[in-house]
Structures are given as structure tokens and as C-alpha cells.
């Protein structure tokens, strides 16, 4: 007997691995200023509706790794309520990379669509 829900979870996780980077870069590319983690999570929640694709906690390590590779930069600022917040902003290198990634994504999407449809 195949445990389909566990398999689906695994499938979802593997797909998210790359897509999260693309989505986070796009969101920060379109935003009018630096955003902090919770803000980004809320925005993504609005986009995804009821189907939450990934846990919000999984966004943060991706943000760190994007920052580590120089696609994002961040600064910590005190907040009115609660602990200081880390604000993320896209770098010029991040914008360049996003253009390339969007190209890859378009190709990938049409390839998958065609493969799934079989036409």
C-alpha cells in the first residue's frame, strides 16, 4: 500500500525548494521598499488563498540563503512593538538573476504543461 499523503508531502517539498527562491525574489522585486519576514508571509498568504504551499517558517532559511548568495540584502531595524525586525531588499544582482530565473521558469512551465497534456 502506498502512503499517498506522505508521498504528496514529499513531492510538494521538493517542488518548493526551487520555487520558494523564485517567488521570494519576485515579491521583493515588486515591493516598493524593504519588507520583513512576516509581511512577506502575509502577502504570500493572500496570493495562495486557502492552499498554503509551504509553512511560513520555511521562508526564512531561503531568505538567509538568498542573502548569502548576494541576491538580497537585509538590515535590522527596531520595531514599535516587539523585537527588532529584519528587512529584506533585492540587490541589482538579484534583479538580474530574477530575469534569468523567470526565463527558466517559463521554459519549465511550458515543458511541464506539454508533457502533462501529452500534446
Amino acid at each position: 500500500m502506498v502512503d499517498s499523503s506522505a508521498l504528496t508531502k514529499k513531492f510538494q517539498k521538493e517542488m518548493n525548494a526551487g520555487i520558494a527562491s523564485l517567488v521570494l525574489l519576485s515579491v521583493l522585486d515588486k515591493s516598493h521598499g524593504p519588507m520583513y519576514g512576516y509581511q512577506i508571509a502575509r502577502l504570500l498568504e493572500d496570493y495562495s488563498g486557502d492552499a498554503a504551499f509551504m509553512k511560513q517558517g520555511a521562508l526564512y532559511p531561503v531568505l538567509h540563503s538568498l542573502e548569502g548568495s548576494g541576491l538580497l540584502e537585509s538590515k535590522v531595524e527596531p520595531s514599535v512593538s516587539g523585537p527588532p525586525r529584519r528587512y529584506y531588499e533585492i540587490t541589482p544582482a538579484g534583479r538580474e538573476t530574477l530575469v534569468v530565473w523567470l526565463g527558466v521558469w517559463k521554459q519549465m512551465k511550458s515543458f511541464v504543461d506539454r508533457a502533462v497534456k501529452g500534446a
Partner: protein
Amino acid sequence: MIHSIEEYLDVLKAELQGSDSATIQDALADAEEHLRAALASLRENQPETSEEEALAQAIEQYGSPEETASAYKEVERRTSPALVRETSAQQSSMLKRFLGVYDDPKAWGALLYMLISLVTGIVYFTWVVTGLSLSVSLAIFIFGLLFAVFFAVSLRGLALLEGRIVEGLLGVRMPRRSLFFQKGTTWFERLKTNLTDRHIWLTLIYFFLQLPLGVIYFTLIVTLFSLSIGLMAAPLVQSITDFPVMSFGVARYYAPLWSTPLFLLAGFLIWTLTMHLGKFIGQLHGTYAKTFLVTE
């Protein structure tokens, strides 16, 4: 069932056991920032939900400690810290490894670190001595407490800065940010947490030692650099300016022409060895800084 953010952080910390300590610190800071923000916004938008329900909802969206821990581990596995290179499996020759240090960003980074550590060492030392003596002498006044808290907070900031320098130049993964205080704690409580925090004392010691270490590093690098450059330049200088390689009193010694390559080789060897030494000291210092500056 998790009843408070602190409990969540504790479980998360336990889940991340064995991960890089800097990753753990990132994960805890992220979770705390997010959950507090989520909780505040939930309480604002739905005042009728209880604190417990709101927290449960926030955690449901953020992910359980297990899920969060696995997300960090996953990303940590995929990305390596700055300057870490894939170590090639094939053993290269001794000579290649000896000269390969010129192509090693860690060696250059370490040399640069040793040079600037004199400046940062002086700054840290001055700051720590001034701050500590003022904190102690002002302690008889009420505002002395405020000053002590300010000093402790500044230490955390400086520790973070030093961490960034160490990570950038020595390639040792360090915390991305300092841990912060919880909202609603009084100044006195903050002072108490600081005084009982082992980490703040370790940071103090680190900053104290940074001056003597900085002096040693700086002197070592500058001396060895001058020695190697001097050796390499000596034959040339003596042929142009009549300046001897060595002079004792009135006796002047000139190196014969055939020894020119020997001088060049000696200078080059000394500099290459200095690069290796720098790399080694850099690694040692990185480990030492990590033990003293990263909160476990």
C-alpha cells in the same frame, strides 16, 4: 501543545541540536520575530480569540518546530558558508598544495584580518575599558543601571560586527544577528539577564584579548612581509643605490651577483610560508571567535 513562544523556541532549539550554532541562532531569532509579529496582528484583528488560540494559529501557519528545524537543516545542507570550497578528492602534489595557498581566498582573507585586527582591537579594547569602568563607577546612581544596560547592548552589537568581519574574512560561519530582549521587560530585568548571561562575559574577554592579539598579528604579518620583500629587493637595491645587504659598524657586506636568485627564492619562500601561517592562524582565530561570540 505549545503554550508560549519561549516554549516553541526551546523545542526548536532541541530539534536543531547538532546543527551549526549560527544556524540555530538564526532560526531562533527568525521564529521569535515572526511569531511575535503574527501574534500581535492576530490579537489586533481578532480580539475575541484567546492568546492560546492565537498562538496555536500562528504556529500552525509558521510550522511546527520539527518542520521549521528540517527546513533550516535542508537549506544548510544545500548551501555552504562563504569561502568554503569543495575540497577535491584527488590528492594534489606537495608543491601544488604549497603554492596553492596563493589561490586560497581564506589565506588572503586571514592576512587582511590580521592587519585590520590591530585597529579593531584598539577600538574594542577602548570601548570595553571605558564602558566597564563607567558601568562600575556609575553603579551608585540610578542612571548607572541604564548606562550598564546600554553598554551591554552595545557589546552585543559589537560582537555581531566582529562576527560579520570574521565570517567575511576568515570564512567561519557566524551569527547573522544578535538575540534581542523580550518586549515588556524592565531595565533592571534586562541588566539581570545580561549579568547572568555567560555569553556577555565571554564577549568581554574576547574584546579585551583582541588588543594584544591584534598587536601580535599585525607585528607578525608586517615583519614577515617586510623581511620577504627586503630579501627579494636587496640585490636590486644594492646594484642601484650602493646600499649593502648587511653592515656591521663600518664593515659593509655586498651579496655577490650569483646569489641574486637565492635572495629572490628566500624572500618568496618566506612570504609563501607567511601565507600558510596566516591561513592557519585565521582558522584558529575563527574557531576561537565562534566559541566566544556565538550564543549556543
